[in-house]
């Protein structure tokens, strides 16, 4: 009786991974709220200003994690997002400052960085048949390298040319990373769950040969996910350029692993076929909240990375315990 109840709970969380990730996020918010509570005074953690800050920082990760989780679901991996973000900030900044292009044009051309890097990764994976790890490692090196060559190590300061508090459609730029993250998460989540293309991405990741024998155009699917992954990473770069007003070659260093971690925490399996776009975005928020909360606890500066690392492992362990295991005898 208790056994079957447990099993039905497990199968529920197995099928609705987003809910368990959201629960973890809620728990995390609660823990930090309690830790950072100051009796008699308003919370520095749960307040509009801080939540906007969390969304602003998590948005960059979250948007890139949408693409990364799609790539992981298709059975691939992407090591390039951090470098692509950096190169995008540099290209956007360069076009805006040195070539005096208007910001929308510079931003649009910045997105082309992601298109090109995505194409390059897709070409290496589908035509040259390199393992995705190596292919995207190459793209990462090339992108980061180009960013350094363009800037010669200098920081491009876009904010100097901005008028105060520039906004788009009347919405302050500070809000855009969060808004875009939420909107894109919903769009791509629906895409992955309800469209034939989304289903085919899952099939390719689960068993490429069986997918091919079922009529799936495997190569086309792979090109698609790497393109989306590249463009979304670039969008993150454009947002950094605009919101933080910087173009720098060493920005977003190591983001690729944080993004992969967010996807895995959100339910993606690195062996492909399984995962959730929404879960990956929630995973990004979990890390965003964690960093934000830890930074408010005095004396923890040097412990931050350690704690983040432990949390990744713990969440994945909890997941393995709660998700129904395949009932094999041996």
């Amino acid at each position, binding site marked *: 009786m208790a056994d079957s109840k447990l099993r039905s709970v497990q199968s529920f969380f197995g*099928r609705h991974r987003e809910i368990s990730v959201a629960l973890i996020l809620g728990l995390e918010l609660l823990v930090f709220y309690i830790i950072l509570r100051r009796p008699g005074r308003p919370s520095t953690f749960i307040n509009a200003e801080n939540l906007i800050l969390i969304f602003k920082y998590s948005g960059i990760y979250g948007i890139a994690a949408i693409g990364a989780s799609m790539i992981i679901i298709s059975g691939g991996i992407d090591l390039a997002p951090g470098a692509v973000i950096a190169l995008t900030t540099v290209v956007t900044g360069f076009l805006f400052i040195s070539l005096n292009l208007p910001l929308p044009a510079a931003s649009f051309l910045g997105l082309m960085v992601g298109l090109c890097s995505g194409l390059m990764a897709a070409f290496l994976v589908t035509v040259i048949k390199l393992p995705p790890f190596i292919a995207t490692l190459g793209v990462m090196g090339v992108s980061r390298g180009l960013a350094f060559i363009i800037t010669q190590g200098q920081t491009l300061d876009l904010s100097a040319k901005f008028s105060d508090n520039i906004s788009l459609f009347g919405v302050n730029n500070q809000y855009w990373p969060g808004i875009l993250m939420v909107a894109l998460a919903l769009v791509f989540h629906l895409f992955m*769950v*309800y*469209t*034939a*293309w989304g*289903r*085919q991405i*899952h*099939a390719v*990741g*689960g*068993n490429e*040969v*069986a*997918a*091919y*024998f*079922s*009529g*799936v*155009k495997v190569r086309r699917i792979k090109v698609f996910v790497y393109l989306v992954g590249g463009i979304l990473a670039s969008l993150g770069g454009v947002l950094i350029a605009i919101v933080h007003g910087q173009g720098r070659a060493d920005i977003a260093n190591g983001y690729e692993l944080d993004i992969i971690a967010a996807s895995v925490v959100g339910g993606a*399996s690195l062996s*492909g*076929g*399984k995962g959730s776009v929404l879960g990956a975005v929630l995973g990004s928020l979990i890390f965003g909240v964690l960093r934000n909360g830890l930074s408010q606890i005095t004396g923890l500066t040097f412990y931050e990375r350690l704690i983040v690392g432990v949390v990744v492992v713990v969440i994945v362990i909890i997941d393995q315990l709660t998700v129904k295991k*395949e*009932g*094999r*005898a*041996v």
Partner: protein
Amino acid sequence: MKEFVKLNQISKAFGGTRALSGVSFGINQGAVHAIVGENGAGKSTLMKILMGILKPDSGQILLDDSPVSILDPVRARQLGFGIVFQEIVLCPNLSITENLFLGSELSTAGIVNRKEMKRQGREALEQVQLKLDPATPVASLPVAQKQMVQIARAVLYKPRLLIFDEPTSALSSESVDSLFKIIRRLKQEKVTVLYISHKLEEIFEIADEVTVLRDGIHIDTLPIREVSEQKLVQMMVGRELDLSSRRSEVKSGEVLLKVDGLCGEGFESVSFEVKAGEIVGIAGLVGSGRSELVETIFGVRPAAKGKIFLGQDDITTQSVAGRARKGMALVPEDRQFAGLVFTMALKQNLALPGVVIGWKELGGKLITNKRETAFAEEAMRKLRIVANGPNAEVSSLSGGNQQKAVIGKWLSLKPKLFMLDEPTRGIDVGSKAEIHNLVRELANQGRALLIVSSELPELLALADRILVMREGRMMGELCGERACEEEILRLAVATIPEKEKGLWQTPN
């Protein structure tokens, strides 16, 4: 003869399902003892208990009349129990010797004793009559020889009881003869053999006694000469089955598939036609290009030359999805590798080709859970797929039901030309009969069927015409009276003299 191993009231349950309930029987010393039963009858569970992989919930195993407890595989090996698995479980990157001693390398003070391993390995290979250099990498061996290496690995430990689990499912019929020679030799050396197989003709050829299991219950154990094939099948499935009836009436229509001078990897200059309402079989040895041919017809392999027509349309350059949309389907040879996506639920697997080609009943390119479930449930009903609902994981299905799922993927799309590559390999006799009936029914509905099979009795029972391939060429066509096993074999292996028609001459 005295009983070597005796099972006494063995029971085992997984969760709510009883895999074995109170099974008792004895295995005579030095006998070849066959165990038969449909998938899910409990054969694998029983074997795993004997090998110490599973522990029984209750019951006793007696070895030479004294009770033993087999706690783990190491203990089973010490007791002299060995097993040859159905699947190839070798490391392809290692040599034969390295595979033989995998996990139990001979060593002195931590340093591997290559010389001794090579010597013992050579001895074991001789015992299975495999004349190969033990340093050969396993990856380069054909399936039949890999299977022999597995047997050699089991023989290495000088077992007193050797279990063969569906050993012939990957072997062509002439390799089976070599396997039987080895089993007879083992028998001479007083090794008791436990032989598990779906193929009844093999059991009648090799076994001395037979145990029938059904739904985890021991039905009977008796000497093989006291039982007929008909009777055995009846005991296994609990009802009478007809496995060998040819269709009485063939109403063939216009030409549905026309293959004209087709060349591709593994075959060349193949031409033939299949008409609506016809069941055409393709026979040939493993490696004769049969699978490559049907896969090229389906478009998963490129055609080098020649043309393929479906009805009036030239589809030679179409994609797989394009061909599927036009009414073609292929159930591939390897259902694990090419048939199912194990990360997706049963219903998603059943809907996959439909989703790809935008099947209307599934809602075109947009998938709704409701439509998909209904679509899957219909396929499950039609094919009698036994599963824990449409959301079941495909890995939880038995082999027969997995194969039905692969067939179901395509059946719902109502293909005009249905190609099935080894549709009943390794599945139980009940599912096999159901698949045979389905094939006949589809042909009666006016579909064209093209069936590749290594089992000649299956082709003879099903096909209206049989095409025979050898080394990538179409050797001839047999229909009606002329189709018999001897004639097919003559075409399939013509140049190979009778006495050499052994394992190692398989053209590969």
